[in-house]
């Protein structure tokens, strides 16, 4: 499983850095990118292979949107995406918050 963090803007990127969020993500094994379209439109950076599934916090979900035509996209809130990254399946934040 791969977890890719893409701040939406330079400002959010800097805020996340100052708050220490990026360090938490990197220590957890995530990849952090500069703000970019990334894999959202299936262009680059972690696009989906055949049969792969993504829990994405983007806003579009069409056949082949994030890569292979036989991959699947599930749109979710950041909290659900974060929880799912921990458990490896689509999960409620309540499952991982102590």
């Amino acid at each position, binding site marked *: 499983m791969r977890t890719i963090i893409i701040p939406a803007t330079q400002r959010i990127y800097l805020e996340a850095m100052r708050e220490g969020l990026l360090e938490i993500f990197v220590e957890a094994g995530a990849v952090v990118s500069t703000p970019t379209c990334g894999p959202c*439109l*299936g*262009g680059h950076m972690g696009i989906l292979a055949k049969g792969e599934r993504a829990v994405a916090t983007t806003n*579009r979900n*069409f*056949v*082949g*949107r994030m890569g292979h035509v036989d991959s699947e996209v599930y749109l979710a809130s950041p909290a659900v995406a974060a929880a799912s990254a921990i458990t490896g399946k689509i999960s409620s934040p309540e499952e991982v918050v102590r």
Partner: protein
Amino acid sequence: MIKGKAIKYGNNIDTDVIIPARYLNTSDPKELAAHCMEDLDPEFKNKARPGDIIVAGTNFGCGSSREHAPIAIKASGISCIIAETFARIFYRNAINIGLPIMECPEAARDIKDGDQVAVDLTTGEITNLTTGRTYKAAPFPQFMQELIEAGGLVEYVKERMGAQG
């Protein structure tokens, strides 16, 4: 007058299946046409003949804004799209690149895959030559007709700037 064979699709045909994002690293119309519709209908590029008409349901062209979508369809030889409704960004992108499109729910529902269809862009009249039935779509406003005839917005503006000297 436009004439061609109907190629029929359903509702909500989105821009990601019209031209998948993985091919957006080019704006060459021929290259885009080679991949047009391939995630929905891999046979499209083989069955589309010059003059053919796409007939579809509601919300054609929804999803990401990309002028590559109407460019890919136009470069495939498609002469016109008839749909129940179009997504608004695709609608204007199609006009801007000179691809005629017609909103006509009756025709879009009635026409079957493979029917021969004629479209008069000036009057908005659509004729199913296979069944003999006719339909009326709202014709384009004058300026949109001029824009399509010019071959799209860029050519239209060039013409107008040329006329002004």
